[in-house]
């Protein structure tokens, strides 16, 4: 009950009724931006941060749990990205895969440098939850989906987040956002189409 209330209090802001703006003024690919970062381009670095800050923080939270340490790991990841951008070779793999690897390595390095404080010996029982392979698969899915969400126009992203994670029905979303129920469904469908295009490889 408390969790449901907490979720509803943390709702995304309702988007306006104006027409949906372009996804992003910056149409450069991730690979192009990494190349520019390698040459010291701060604007390209900021654009990559805009696109990937939430995906990086997402996997950091999955690995670390603690919010403060996960935020430190996120900053470490972008510092590492700045330093290592010149090592990205677009002929050897996709930019999003390379960024995923940079993030995972930075998070693991951060855990080694700042090990989680312990107050007592861990219990001698198997860890609950998924095994390493499942966890890695789950991290990758979150990474790709959260990155894909960043490509949506704000109004569509808000609707998706409300529809999937607020606990609201579509009718409640229509009331919250102040648009007709039919428009909510049309925009949600449009958002899922964009996500399908963006996630083409993951759809199998």
């Amino acid at each position, binding site marked *: 009950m408390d969790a449901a209330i907490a979720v509803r209090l943390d709702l995304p802001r309702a988007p306006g009724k104006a027409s949906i703006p372009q996804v992003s003024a910056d149409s450069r690919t991730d690979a192009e931006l990494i190349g520019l970062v390698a040459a010291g381009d701060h604007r390209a670095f*900021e654009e990559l941060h805009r696109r990937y800050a*939430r995906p990086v923080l997402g996997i950091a*939270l999955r690995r670390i749990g603690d919010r403060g340490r996960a935020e430190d790991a996120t900053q470490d990841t972008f510092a590492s990205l700045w330093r290592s951008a010149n090592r990205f070779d677009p002929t050897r793999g996709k930019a999003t895969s390379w960024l995923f690897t940079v993030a995972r390595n930075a998070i693991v390095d951060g855990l080694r440098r700042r090990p989680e404080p312990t107050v007592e010996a861990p219990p001698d029982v198997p860890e609950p939850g998924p095994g390493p392979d499942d966890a890695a698969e789950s991290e990758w899915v979150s990474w790709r*989906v959260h990155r894909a969400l960043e490509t949506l126009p704000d109004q569509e992203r808000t609707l998706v987040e409300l529809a999937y994670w607020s606990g609201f029905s*579509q009718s409640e979303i229509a009331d919250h956002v102040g648009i007709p129920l039919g428009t909510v469904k049309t925009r949600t*469908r449009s958002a*899922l189409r964009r996500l399908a295009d963006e996630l083409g490889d993951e*759809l199998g």
Partner: protein
Amino acid sequence: MSDLRDLIGDDVDPEELNRLQRVHTLLEQAGPPPSLSPSLARPPASGGDVITFPRRYRPLAAAAAVAAAAVLFTVGYLVGNTGPSTEFTVAMSGSGGASGSLEIYAKDHAGNWPMRLHVDGLAEGKYALWLTRGGRLAEPCGSFAVAAGRANNVPLNAPYKLRSFDGWVVVPSGSKQPVLTT
């Protein structure tokens, strides 16, 4: 778990419905993306802030900075080692008569170097003290404000291995242009 048809309506052809259903499943697997706190609203500044000098003066500036830092660290240590807990003192200078001195106290057991920065002649505003390495801002040591026409004396901290740096600079907040250097 919500039903996809509830979200997008019924008038979708089967092929598209199948495609969107897979997206729907991935969204449910991924869970909500985290919200960003204000501290993550921008990328880390230390990623590559470069203190820019005119190109023709860069070799001279770099050599002068290294030499000045070495001399001032040594002199600062000898002069500043008279107090009970001061490890060394570093002098700083800038344009327009601005000056400063940085008194570094003994390192604590956790690796912090407590410091007291005295600045004079800086314009009113907010500033930050940074350690530098190779002509770049490397690590921050804290921020402080200066009131018009006043000398300031502010406590700061450097939780780093000082040997791995070659000097300090004071820059206005949000700027990379030093107003005081060692």
